[in-house]
């Protein structure tokens, strides 16, 4: 199994540019999540989804958008990149809320200059 696959691994954006971070899982998990990790700050939840067609905001959603058209895919969209969005982004998935581990992707390191 591939697990959770994130692309790209690295990206440099100019201020004001837009991009989509891709996330795909092949475990048939209903729940998917996007986190960002900043140095010394741990992981912060951006958006999450409990199934296809359903998304909700997490702790730090400003500047981001998501969609969930299929069970497998959960892309994260940055419309107008800002230096504050320089971070490492992780996608995760799970079968459900309790009793199940969350599987993480290997991350996308984004720099906005």
């Amino acid at each position, binding site marked *: 199994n591939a697990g959770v696959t994130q692309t790209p691994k690295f990206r440099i954006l100019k201020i004001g540019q837009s991009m989509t971070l891709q996330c795909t899982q092949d475990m048939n998990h209903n*729940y998917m999540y996007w986190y960002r990790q900043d140095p010394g700050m741990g992981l912060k939840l951006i958006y999450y989804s409990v199934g296809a067609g359903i998304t909700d905001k997490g702790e730090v959603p400003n500047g981001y958008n998501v969609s969930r058209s299929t069970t497998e895919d959960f892309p994260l969209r940055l419309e107008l990149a800002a230096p504050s969005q320089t971070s490492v982004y992780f996608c995760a998935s799970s079968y459900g809320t309790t009793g199940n581990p*969350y599987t*993480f992707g290997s991350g996308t390191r984004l720099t906005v200059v």
Partner: protein
Amino acid sequence: SQELEQSPQSLIVQEGKNLTINCTSSKTLYGLYWYKQKYGEGLIFLMMLQKGGEEKSHEKITAKLDEKKQQSSLHITASQPSHAGIYLCGRLSGGGADGLTFGKGTHLIIQP
């Protein structure tokens, strides 16, 4: 304030020594997860604890959950270079679907 406090923030241990990392929650623990992250990589699931008093082990790593103290500890016995990395604890957010809330992590360095 941080919902999950990890201590210490960083730890340098000589190879072969034992060590303990603590994770304390300011809210009721419905489930506590431990992950390891190698520098520049993703998170690797270690263990999940759900019940007070629960203890789980995997190879040389043991985790315990003290529900009354709202605290979990991660103990590594006879540390090895492969144990180096960032250890993160995460708690379920009240049984809802909104994922895990994480501590800031403990950076572990193993000195030969």
